[in-house]
C-alpha cells in the first residue's frame, strides 16, 4: 500500500464519489419525477428505491476503481462469509455480481468469447468465462475492477467456484482461501459444523497475514450481526410479495439483490433495504401492484437470465402474470434465522452451509412447495440453467412433483444466466406464450 494511493482513495471515497453520486442522483431524481405519474404499462408505477440502488452500486464500483494499492482488496464468491473480512477493511469485489452486471449490460458475450479464445471451454459457467474475459482483456462496464490481494471461494454455491478461483489465483499470483462447506443431507452432521468453524479461524489467520492487522473481535461481532440483520431485512422485503397484488416482481428483486450480495454486513445495505421496505409497504397499503393487472402468481427457480430480464418480465406482465417469489432471491434470507450473537462461529457455520444450493433435493422440493403455498403461486417457471448444474439437476423431477402432485403448473425454460448464445429468444417467447395459455 502506498501513501499516495491511500490519499487518492480517501479523496475519491470521501469527496469525488459522494459528489458523483449526488450529481447522478439529482439527474435520476429529475427523470424519475418526470416519469413518476406517467403510465408504465404493463407495470405499476416506478420505484424510487431504484435511484437509491443506483447510488449505492455506483459508489461501490466507483471507489473500487481506486481501491488496490490503497486498501486490501478481496475477490470473493457470493456465498462466502464476507462478514469475516469486513473488520480487516477489505474492499470486496464479487466477480459473480460483476459478471451479472456485464450480462445485463450485454457485454458478457464478448467477454466469454475472449475467454474461449484463450482456451476456456464454452461449456464452463458463463460467470467464470465473463470474469476470465474481463480479467484478460481489462474490459468492464464499471470502468475498472481493482486487482485482488486475497481470493476467497466457498463451495456452498458450487464446486465450479473452486476451480474458477484456482485459475484466478494463478493469474494474479495471490493467496486463495478455499472455504469448503460440505453438502448437507437432511439436517447435516455435527462434524460439518466443526469443519466450518475451524475454517473460519484459518480464514481469519490468512486475513491477518494479508493485511498485517489483528482481528478486532468486536468488529467481527458487529459486522456479523449486521450481516444477519441485512439478510433479515431482505427477507422482509421479499415477504411483502405475499400480498395481492404483490408490490414488486421477482424480476425487480433480481435487480435489488445487488446490495445483499455485494454489501452484506455494511450499514448502507441495511438502510437501503429499510427504505425499499417502506416504499413497498406504502404500495401494499394503497393496493398498488408491481404489474397493472395481476391475474396469476408465479415462482421462479434458479438464477435469472440476466440479459433477458426486461423481455421476460414484459411478456409475463402483459399476460397478467407476476413472479412473486424465487428460490434464488430467497437464498440470501433463508438461513438468517440460524444466527446467534452468543455463538457467532457455530451459528454462522449453519447459516453458510444450509443454503438451498448446498442441500439435498428433498429440501429443495419442500422449500419450493412452501414458497408456492406462502406466496399463493399458481405456477412455476424453472430456469434450466446451462451454466449452473447444481441448481438445475433435479428440476425435471421437481416440475413433475409440482405439476402432478400439487396441481402447480410448471414450465422448464432452457437458457443460461449470462451467455445469450445459449438462449433462443424466439423459442423462449413461444414457450412462455404456450405456458400462459394453459392458464386460460
Amino acid at each position, binding site marked *: 500500500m502506498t501513501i499516495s494511493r491511500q490519499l487518492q482513495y480517501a479523496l475519491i471515497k470521501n469527496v469525488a464519489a459522494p459528489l458523483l453520486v449526488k450529481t447522478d442522483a439529482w439527474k435520476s431524481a429529475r427523470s424519475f419525477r418526470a416519469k413518476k405519474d406517467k403510465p408504465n404499462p404493463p407495470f405499476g408505477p416506478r420505484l424510487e428505491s431504484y435511484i437509491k440502488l443506483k447510488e449505492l452500486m455506483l459508489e461501490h464500483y466507483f471507489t473500487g476503481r481506486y481501491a488496490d494499492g490503497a486498501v486490501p482488496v478481496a475477490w470473493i464468491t457470493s456465498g462466502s462469509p464476507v462478514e469475516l473480512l469486513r473488520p480487516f477493511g477489505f474492499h470486496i469485489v464479487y466477480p459473480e455480481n460483476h459478471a451479472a452486471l456485464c450480462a445485463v449490460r450485454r457485454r458478457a458475450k464478448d467477454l466469454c468469447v475472449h475467454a474461449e479464445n484463450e*482456451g476456456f471451454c464454452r*461449456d464452463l459457467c458463463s460467470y467464470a468465462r465473463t470474469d476470465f474475459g474481463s480479467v484478460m482483456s481489462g474490459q468492464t462496464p464499471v470502468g475498472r475492477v481493482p486487482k485482488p490481494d486475497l481470493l476467497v471461494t466457498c463451495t456452498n454455491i458450487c464446486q465450479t467456484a*473452486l476451480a474458477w478461483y484456482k485459475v484466478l489465483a*494463478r493469474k494474479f499470483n495471490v493467496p486463495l482461501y478455499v472455504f*469448503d462447506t460440505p453438502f448437507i443431507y437432511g439436517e447435516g452432521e455435527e462434524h460439518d459444523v466443526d*469443519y466450518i468453524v475451524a475454517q473460519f479461524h484459518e480464514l481469519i489467520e490468512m486475513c491477518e497475514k494479508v493485511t498485517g492487522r489483528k482481528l478486532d473481535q468486536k468488529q467481527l461481532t458487529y459486522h456479523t450481526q449486521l450481516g444477519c440483520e441485512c439478510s433479515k431485512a431482505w427477507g422482509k422485503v421479499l415477504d411483502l410479495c405475499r400480498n395481492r397484488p404483490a408490490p414488486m416482481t421477482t424480476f425487480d428483486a433480481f435487480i435489488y439483490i445487488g446490495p445483499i450480495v455485494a454489501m452484506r454486513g455494511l450499514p448502507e445495505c441495511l438502510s437501503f433495504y429499510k427504505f425499499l421496505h417502506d416504499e413497498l409497504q406504502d404500495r401494499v397499503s394503497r393496493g398498488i401492484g408491481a404489474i397493472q393487472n395481476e391475474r396469476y402468481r408465479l415462482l421462479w427457480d434458479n438464477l435469472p437470465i440476466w440479459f433477458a430480464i426486461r423481455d421476460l418480465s414484459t411478456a409475463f406482465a402483459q399476460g397478467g402474470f407476476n413472479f412473486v417469489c424465487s428460490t434464488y432471491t430467497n437464498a440470501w434470507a433463508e438461513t438468517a434465522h440460524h444466527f446467534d450473537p452468543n455463538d457467532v462461529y457455530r451459528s454462522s457455520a449453519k447459516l453458510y452451509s444450509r443454503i438451498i444450493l448446498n442441500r439435498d433435493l428433498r429440501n429443495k422440493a419442500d422449500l419450493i412447495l412452501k414458497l408456492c403455498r406462502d406466496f399463493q403461486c399458481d405456477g412455476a417457471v424453472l430456469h434450466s440453467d446451462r451454466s449452473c*448444474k*447444481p441448481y*438445475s439437476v433435479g428440476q425435471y423431477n421437481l416440475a413433475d412433483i409440482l405439476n402432478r402432485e400439487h396441481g402447480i403448473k410448471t414450465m422448464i425454460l432452457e437458457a443460461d444466466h449470462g451467455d445469450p448464445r445459449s438462449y433462443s429468444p424466439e423459442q423462449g417467447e413461444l414457450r412462455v406464450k404456450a405456458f400462459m395459455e394453459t392458464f386460460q
Partner: protein
Amino acid sequence: MDRKAYIAEQKEKRGRKTVLVFPIHYPREVLTALNVLGVEIWGPPGFPRAPASTHLQPFICGIAHNILAFIMAGKADVVDGILCPHTCDSLQMLASLLPDFKLTDKPCFRFRHPKGKSPDSKSARGFYKAELKGLLDKLEPFFGRPSEAELQKAIGLHLEADELKLKLLDQRAYFTTNDRAFYEVLRAGEYLWVEDHIAMMKKLLESKSPEPVEKRKPIMVSGIVPEPMDILDAINNAGAFAAADDFAAISRRIAMKRPNPDSDPLDALTDMFFARRGCTTLGTELEERANLLLKLAKSRDCRGLLIYNVKFCEPEAFYVPDTQDIFKKAGIPSLYMETELEAEFSGQASTRLEAFIEMLEQPS
C-alpha cells in the same frame, strides 16, 4: 469372465455383497474390510440414455447420464447398495436425485471429501476422518462393522495393489502388450476383489521384457477415464503409446506415500487420501498439478500430451488452458479432445488424433 458373472460368483462362493460405486475418490479399503465387493461405474457406454434424459439435462456430463441409464435399465439390480462420493456438482446432485425422487430402491451412502485443501490442513484431515467414521456408521446396518485388524489388512492389500499399479505404469515401455490390454489390467481393479486384481497385475508384470520394447512415440494421457477404450487403440494405431498416465480412473487415485504402519486405520486412510497425486476434482493447486504432470511427462520422454475429457466435465475443463500453457512453454505440444462417452470412438476424432501424433517428434 464378465463383471456380472464375477459379481454372481463372488456372492455365491465368497458370500460377498456388492456395492455400486460412483467415481472417483473413496475409501475402497473400507468395503474390502467389510468383505463387500465394490464395483465402480464410470458411465459405461451402450445403455439407452432416453430414460435417464427425462431426469437430467443434456448439459450434464455423459458419466452422470450413463450411470443413471445403467441403473434405470435394471443393470444395478444385483447390487446391495450405492456409494456416492462427492466428486463434482453433477454427481453430488445425482446422489441426491436417486434416493430423493425414488429412482432406485437401493440404499445410497454418500461420502463427502474435502475440496481444495492441502495435505497439511488440520481441519480438512479432521473432517475426512470424521466422514470415514460416518461412512462406517452408515454401512454398519447393512454390512456390519469391520474390526481394526480387518481394516489394517484391507489397507495393506490396497497399498500392495497401488504399488503394483505404479510399477506397471512406470515400466510401461517394457511391455509388448498394447495399451488397451494394458489398461484393461489396470482398470480391472474397478470391479475385481483386490487380491484377484493383485494376482492379475503380478501376472502382467511377469511378462515384462528386460529392455524397453516400445518403439512408438511416447505420449502422456490425461483425463477422467479412457472410455470408450477404443481411444487407446486409436493412439496405438496412430503410432504412439501411453507412456505416462494421468487418468482420474487410474493414477490419480494412487497414494504416493505409504502411511505410518503403526497408525490407527482411519488415520492411515486419511494419510492415503491426502497422499494422492493431485486431481482436478479435489481442487488441487493448478500450477503445482501441471508442473507435476510435466515432470512425469519429461521423465518418460513424452513427446506430447493428450487431454481426453468428458464433455461438460467442469472441474477438468478449468485446468486445461493453464496445463496446456505450461506444457507448451516446456516444448511439449498438447491436444484437447472431448468425449460424450458414446459407444464408439468417432472416425473424426481418430483423424484429429492421427494428425496430432504424426506431427510429434520420434523419440531418439
